Structures are given as structure tokens and as C-alpha cells.
């Protein structure tokens, strides 16, 4: 029963966030269209906020340093840093990144040199889907175009996971987003780049979690998650 209530809520919701203003109307802002063509850009760019303040962070060897998902109003929806940053620092970084993103025009490249935000030799790649920005921060040992595709993998998987993912899914199920992300990136390295495989893994986890929730005994290796 509760299940249905939630469903209702998240599908038909139409509410506005006026002050800091995030605007979601129903399920209109879908991230993926039917034909698989990703990206319906929308969302008013809010006022310019310049990234200020530099942080001298020691160069880490991690290739992918952070994955951020935030909405077009700068609210974080997911923040995963592969090398530890204290929470205050994380907020500052998120704000700086949003400041840079919101000042970018449309139809420009998806790459930004981020050494003023994340320390020397870092870059970020972002993709703008409906009301969300997906941002990957990484160092120079990664290939920007490949990172762009990794974002694509991530979003495709989310879309399969939530069936036409929208911002609300992401808000309410951010722990599931973490699960998906953990299957794609592991300790700052690319782990899996096929959204089908990621989905398989996530479904497996879900199944076992459900099972462990009802029966406290974990059924051992019932997986079809066999080597391909």
C-alpha cells in the first residue's frame, strides 16, 4: 500500500521550489526520450556565480576524482569523492563547480579545465540532461571523450534502472544511484562500461537484498551473474 502512495507521489508531483527554485513538473522532464536520443536541454540557467577561492589539494593519483550530480539550481543530488575531502570542502567544491557550469553557454564543449577548483592538472567533463548536470572530475591521464561516454553509460544505466529516469527518482533513490555508480567506477577507476552488465549486477544485488530482508538467511550463490 505504502508502495503505491510513493509511486503516486513521485510520478504526479508538481511542485516548485521558489526561493532557491528547483522546478519539477510531473514527469515531463524525462532524461531520455523514447528513441534513445539522450538530452533534452531545459532549465533556466540561474544567475552567474563565479567560482572563487582556490584550494591547494595535493595531487592524487586517482584517475577519476569525483562524480557529482547536481540539478540546474546547484543542489547536489549525488556527490562521490574518490579521495576523501571533508564535508565543508565538498560543499565548496560543489558550489565552485556549479558556478562554472552555470556560466557556460549552450552549444559549447563539455570540457572544462578545473585546476582552479580541484588542483593542478584536473579536468572535468559534464553533461546536461533535463534538470540535471552530471559531472565527472578526473586527471590528465584520462581521455575526455571517453569520460563523456562513461557519463553516457551511467545515465543509460540509471535510465534502465528507473525506467525513464527523472530528477525525482534520483532524489529519492540516491542510495541506488550509489549502487549503480559503484558498479561502473571502482576506487577511481573504470570498472565496467556496459550498461547491460551493470544492470545485471544491480538487479542481482536488489534481488539478494530483498531476499535477505524477508528471510534473514542469505541464499548462497543463486546468481546467474556468471562470467560472460
Amino acid at each position: 500500500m505504502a508502495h503505491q502512495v510513493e509511486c503516486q507521489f513521485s510520478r504526479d508531483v508538481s511542485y516548485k521550489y521558489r526561493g532557491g527554485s528547483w522546478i519539477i513538473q510531473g514527469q515531463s522532464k524525462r532524461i531520455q526520450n523514447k528513441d534513445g536520443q539522450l538530452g533534452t536541454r531545459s532549465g533556466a540557467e540561474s544567475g552567474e556565480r563565479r567560482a572563487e577561492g582556490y584550494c591547494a589539494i595535493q595531487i592524487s593519483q586517482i584517475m577519476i576524482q569525483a562524480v557529482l550530480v547536481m540539478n540546474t539550481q546547484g543542489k547536489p543530488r549525488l556527490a562521490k569523492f574518490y579521495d576523501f575531502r571533508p564535508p565543508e570542502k565538498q560543499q565548496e567544491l560543489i558550489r565552485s563547480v556549479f558556478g562554472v557550469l552555470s556560466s557556460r553557454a549552450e552549444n559549447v564543449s563539455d570540457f572544462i579545465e578545473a585546476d582552479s577548483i580541484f588542483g593542478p592538472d584536473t579536468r572535468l567533463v559534464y553533461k546536461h540532461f533535463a534538470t540535471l548536470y552530471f559531472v565527472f572530475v578526473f586527471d590528465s591521464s584520462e581521455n575526455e571523450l571517453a569520460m563523456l561516454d562513461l557519463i553516457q553509460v551511467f545515465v543509460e544505466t540509471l535510465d534502465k534502472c528507473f525506467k525513464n529516469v527523472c530528477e525525482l527518482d534520483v532524489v529519492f533513490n540516491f542510495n541506488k544511484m550509489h549502487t549503480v555508480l559503484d558498479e561502473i567506477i571502482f576506487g577511481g577507476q573504470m570498472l565496467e562500461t556496459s550498461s547491460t552488465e551493470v544492470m545485471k549486477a544491480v538487479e542481482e544485488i536488489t534481488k539478494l537484498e530483498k531476499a535477505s530482508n524477508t528471510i534473514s538467511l542469505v541464499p548462497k550463490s543463486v546468481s546467474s551473474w556468471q562470467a560472460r
Partner: protein
Amino acid sequence: MGSQGGWGQSKEFLDLVKSIGEARSKAEEDRIVMSEIENLKRRITEPDIPKRKMKEYIIRLVYVEMLGHDASFGYIHAVKMTHDDSLLLKRTGYLAVTLFLNENHDLIILIVNTIQKDLKSDNYLVVCAALTAVCKLINEETIPAVLPQVVELLGHPKEAVKRKAIMALHRFYQRAPSSVAHLISNFRKRLCDNDPGVMGATLCPLFDLIAADANSYKDLVVSFVSILKQVTERRLPKSYDYHQMPAPFIQIRLLKILALLGNGDKQASEHMYIVLGDMFRKCDLSSNIRNAVLYESICCVSSINCSTKLLESAAEVTSQFLKSDSHNLKYMGIDALGRLIKINPEIAEEHQLAVIDCLEDPDDTLKRKTFELLYKMTKSSNVEVIVDRMIDYMISINDNHYKTEISSRCIELAEQFAPSNQWFIQTMNKVFEHAGDLVNVKVAHNLMRLIPEGFGEDNEGADNQLRSSAVESYLRIIGEPKLPSLFLQVICWVLGEYGTADRKFSASYITGKLCDVAEAHPSDDIVKAYAVTAIMKIYAFEIAAGRKVELLPECQSLVDELSASHSTDLQQRAYELQAVLGLDARAVESIMPSDASCEDIEVDKSLSFLDGYVQEALVKGARPYIPESERSGMSNISNFRGQVHHDSSTHGLRFEAYELPKPSGASRIQPAPLAASKELVPVSEPTYPQEILQPASVSSVSETGPTEFKLRLDGIQKKWGRPTYSPTAPSTSNSNPQKTVNGAPQLVVQGAVSSQAHDVSYDSRKTKVEVSPEKQKLAASLFGGWSSKTEKRPTSTNHKTTRVHSAAVEKSQMPTAAVASTEQAAEKESPQQPPLNLLDLGDPTPGDSTASIDPFKQLEGLLGPSDVSSVGNSAVTASKSADIMSLYAESPISGLGGTVANMAPTNSINLTSGVSNAANRNVPVGSASTQVAPVKKGPNPQDSLEKHAVARQVGVTPSVTNPNLFRDLLG
């Protein structure tokens, strides 16, 4: 599985999210979150919370912390949750701790045990969750605790677990290389794992290892190449395909590794030629991931010791990137171009217009990348244009970080390639004015060194000209408001040194100006100090030249003000100024010699002027000084003592020095030779054994001695040296490289400009239609330098040109031979190769590698340039070889190989026909320029093709034929 199925959150959480969403302001949002935190704090400590509820609370904590609020009160509960048996709760617990804690957090110790247990779990999902936590939470000290379990997992039946275990080991390697040093062979072993996913994961640690030490992995080159070949031939399972591309991410990683291995290693590079050639042959810009692989191939080509043919294909792909409409591709194209011009600078010529388009693009990222490219290709012929552009951009942005970077680049280029003194000074002025205090202090000091030293030409006249032009421009600029402090310091210093040097300006005029500066910046002590010292110098020069000096009234008041200043430095300077005024000409000249800022100040470290005094004391019976190093056997103790002493000195008072039971006569003498005890030639041998018995007293003296004396030396420096400058004075040799680079710049530029002018007029006639003359001019000034530069080669001293020239010669000879040989080699080699299989990649048989080397060498020797016919057939041979290769494949895709090979020629035919079309269209149209101009803005393929054609004409034509021809034609 819908968005809520199985992940159901409670009503409360939904309400929380909803109310935060509806908050009208940040303050309201904060209030909601704070009350939520209070709520959670209360509830989470209640006894007997159902586990489900607890999980819910933890999720809410994570959410709250993501919004930037402190949730540390709940960390311990997250830790507890990892101990739970239920997978759902355990995973939630692990998720929360990996987000909350860092590897050095106190609570980690409570998790290590759980992780150890979970790594051994039967349920592979528990193992995976633990591995994820391992990556984040295990630090150097705790690695040994989990290492055995992780290593054991390398043999886990699940491929996913194996992969994660490898990556966890990689993480350990990154954290503490020594901890897994003994396991590195495991990575090599895993490279030949049956599962391609595991092999792919192994590439990450191998990349790091190879980056650290490429030489020990040269034996793997053949394996990597064959893996890459198999991947591109679609030998991997279908599930690795991404957007119809076989395992592109693995390809990219392999290419990165090959780039490292082939760097500066001809033999290793030769193994890669064929497979890299294949990469380019399959080139089409259809999908993003394909471009990513292509870009990586270009990077690889630019890093290895590449063949001419590969370079050509790389350049071809780069040009397609640049011609693309996508900003992303343009960005990659510019980056690739930057890499390729390191090998052959001529490649840039072709793309000049594309580069200029990128420079004018509204996209900041692209612009910056383009500036980076320009920075790399700056020469003395185009430095003016490039630096001007950079400065314009610098003025237009307000991102301080980048402003600093670009300003230092401007200055660097200006110093290296400045065509004239005037221009140099003006450029520096502009940079200082606009970048202000963002400029590195070192840069200012550099400038202060450069002006007295000049550009290194032998004639003093040029240097003087530089100085007087600097003085003039500074006098012009000095009155402007809001000059940055650093710039004012430079101005003051230069005016003080050279303001009156050429007698153009009177001393009183310049001192007046300097007083104005000091007055205008009442709060800036450094500027005031510079100003008053500059005034002192001017007066000193006047006195030394025997002229009468009148202290200006405003100057007097400045001196009065400063002598009462709170800053002792300013006070001292003011008093020094007054003292100098009272001296006679001879004395003044020796303390303030004119234009002597570059002279080395000789410090008599041995203090020889005290020798007489020491002799006298020795005669009177004082004991001679024994240097610290000579005191045998005492080095350890004295070191130790020195440390102790050092510590005590921080407390302020040094008691030991005063407690010496020494005759007063001896202690009076000793400080003098002690002062430089370390460098000193020993005054006498250690003939006094009793000295050793009292090391305490002696060493303590020797410790206090230098510090005391140093203080006094400082005083001396301040008095006679140029205060801030003196520390850098000895390193005069730093700017020597610049001098040689700058040989005869005037001449070269003249030549370049004249020939460029002709290029431009010639081209603009033909191609007015789509490219504005301005852009053309810009292009010519940026890139045209090449052709004219090579023309001028005999006169210019720049050895860069000669290098290029020889490269060009090589290029013209090489291609036929190289092309033929590689193709032939491919054909010859392929039958020898056993059918490659993922299973047996592991041992790279040495025989294989030698077999593939030899044909190269032999063929290169055999095939002369006469063997041109085979070049024409290269496409055929290529497709043939592809066919041969495909015979070996289990799943034959021979058709594909053939078509791909065929595609290359057709593509190029299309391209050339397009170009010729463009040319045809252009020639008759002379007056249609206005009509087409607006169209030009929107980039379409045709336009870019046309531009390409134009670019070819602009860049290439003059270098082929003599530009003088055009001069004749044009009259």
C-alpha cells in the same frame, strides 16, 4: 523494477525531501535540515530500533551530510550497521561509512575486523561490498591486515570479484607502493586471464607501473600489441561492444600503455606501426567513442617513435577533428595538433584558419586550449601577434587563476622572443598593468635583472636604448592611478637606476615623480621603500658626477616623514639617504657606483681583513681557532649539541654562551675566524689536545658565532647592496639562453613581414569570398612565419629552423620506403604468426618478436626510393593483409576488413574532389564577398572544406615555390 520497488523509503524521508524542495530560501532549508538533525539525534539513540528503521535513519544521515550539514553524531551507527548479517543493511552500512569516513578516521579500526570477515564471505556480493570499502577506507597501516584476503580473491571464481580484487590491489599500490611490491608479478599474470574483463582491469595497475618504470615492461609490448589487435578484430565477446565499437575503453587503455612503452624506443615503436595504422584506417567520425579511440591513437603516435606514414594519418584525423562542428571534437583536435607539432611543426600550417576560428570561439575552454597551442608554437616571427592576443584575452577575463597563468606565459614568451626593446617594455607594462598583483614576484625581479643586463648583445648602445625606452615609458605611465604595487616597485627601481643615466631628464624631475609615487601610496611600505632608495640613488649619482644637489622640498618632507616611520626599514632608508647627502663625491661613488646592479658583490668570506688583528692576538698568546670539522671525533657530539643548541635558541635567551669559563681575551678573538667556520681554510692544525676536553665551550661559541656575525653581514648588505635585488644578483647566468635565442631578431622579422604581406595579398585576391582579410592576415602572421623562416635560414641563427629543415628533407625521402616496407612487412609477417588467442597471450615468445623486427630492417635496406609502384598499391596490399589476418579469426569478418581498407581511398577522393570544387567555385567569384560573408558564420561542412583549401594555399604554396615569384607577379 520501478523507481520505488524494493527501495521504498518511509513517508518521513519523502516528507523531508519534499519540504526541503519546497523551502523558499536557503535559511528555511537550513532550518528544516537542522530540525531533521535534531530529530535524528534523538531517535537514533533510542533503544531497540528495528533494523529497517535504522537503515532508514542512516540513509537520511547520508542525505543530510550531502546537503552540507554535519552528521558526525551518526557515524558510529553506520559503523555498527556494517556488522549486520543482512546484505541490505550491510551494504547500506558500507555505503554510509565510505561516504562519511576517511582512511585515517578513528572509527576505521572498528571496521577492519568486519572487512576481514566479509572478504572471506561465501556470498560474493558481501565480498564486493567489502572490497569497495577497502578501496576507500584502508590506509597504509591497515593494508597488511586485509592484504592476504584480497590476494586470495584473485583466484575467486567470479569474474567481478577478481576484477575488484585487482583494482583494490592497484589502490594499495597507489597508497603505499612498498606494501604490494612483492605482488607485482600478479598483475602480469592476470594480464593473460581467460576473462577479458579481468585483463582489462589489470591494465590500470600496469599503466601505473609502466608510467613509473617503462624499461622493465618492454617485454610486454608484443603482448599488448596483439591484445589490441585482437580487440580491434572483434575477438572479444559481443557484450564488450559499446556503440558498435569493440571494447573501446580497453582499446584506449592499451593505447595509453603503448604510448608509454614506445616513448623514445624505436624498436618497441616498430611493433606498433601496423596496429596503429589499422586504427586510423578504420577512421570515421561517426560516434563519440570512436573519436575517443582515434584521439588516443593520435596521442600514441605523437608519443612513440613514429613513422612518417603514421604521422600523416594522425594529421589527417586531426584535421577532421578540427573541421568538425562539434566543440568537443575541435577541442580534441587542438589538443592533438599541439602534440603533433612537437614532431613536425609544419602540420600546423594547414590548420591555421581552423585554429583562428577556435581562438575566436565563444567557448572559453576551447579558447584556452588554443592559447596553449599557440604558446607551444610561438616563434620570434609570430610572437607579437600571439602575445597581443593573449593580453587581450587576459584583460577580458576575471578568473584570477587563469589570469596568473596566462600573464606568466606572456612574460615568458616576451622574454624569449621579443623582437625589439620597445615592444618588450610595452608588453611588460601591459601585463603588469592588467594582471597587476597576480604576476609572480619572480617575474618582476627577472625584469629588474633583464633591464640592467640587456638582451646580451655585445653593444652597449642597444642596452642603453632599452633602458631609456623603459624609463620613458615608465615616466609616462607613473601618474596613472591604481597601478599594482609590484609594478610600481619595478618602476621605482628602474627610475632610480637609470632615470638620469642618459641625461634626458633632470634629477629633480625624476625625484619629484618618485616623491609623488611615495605620497600616492601612503599605506604601501614596500613601494615607499623602493621610492626612497631610488631617490637616494639619483642623488648619489648626481653627487658622484660632481653636480650640486638640492633636496626638493617635497623630498625633504618625505624624508622627514619616513624618519619618523613605524617601519624600521623605512627609517633606516631615510637616514641613509640623509647620510649619503652629507658625503663627498668620492665616497658616494664607492658606495653607489652607477649602473652596477649586475656587478657581483664580493663578500670576503674568509674575513681576510681581520688577519692582522688575529695575528696580533695570537702573538699575545691567544689560542688559535680550530674549525669544527677539525675537532676529531667530535662531529657526532657537536651535531647533537648543535641541535640542542638550536632548540634552546628558540627560547630567546642563550644561556650557555654567557656561562663560558673562558679568559676574556680568548673569547674576544675567537668570533672573527669562527664566523665562517665551515667554509674557512683552517687557521691552524688541531695541535691542542686539551681542546677536545672542552668541546662544550668551543662548540657553543662556534654556534653563536655565525649567527651573530650573520646579523652584521646583513647590515652590510643593506647598506651597500641594492636592497631587495642583491639576493638574486649572483645568478646572472640565468638569462643567457634568452640571449642566444634572440640573435638578430630585427632582421628576421623584417623579412617575414614583407613576404607575409605578399602572401596575404596574393591569397586574399583568390579567396576573398569566404575568409575575411583580417583573419587571413592573422593567420599569415601566426603561421606564415614558417615559410619565410625557412627561406631566411642562412641568416638566422635559430637552430630550430635547421632542425625543421632536416626533418623536411627526411620526410621527402622517407615516405616511399617506409610505406612500402611496412606493408610488405605486414604481408610477410602475418603468415608466420601463430593464430593468436586470448588464452595464450601470456608468454610473449621472444622468437615472435625477433621475427617481426627483422623483416623491417631488411626491407628498409632493400627497398630504394625507386620502388614507388608499391605505394600506389598500398591500399591493395593492405586489404590483402587484412584478409590474411581475418583468415585466422574464429569469427571471420573478412568483409569488414576489406571494406575498411577500401574506404580510405574513396574518402580521400571525395575530399580532394571537394577541395577542387571549392577552388573552382572561388576563382570566378570576385564580387560576391558581401553575399557570402554572413553565411560564413554558421559552420557547415562545405565551408570548412573551402577553408581547408584556402588554408592549404595560404600555408603551403609559398613554402613550395619562392615567394619572390609572387612579388614579381604582383608588381
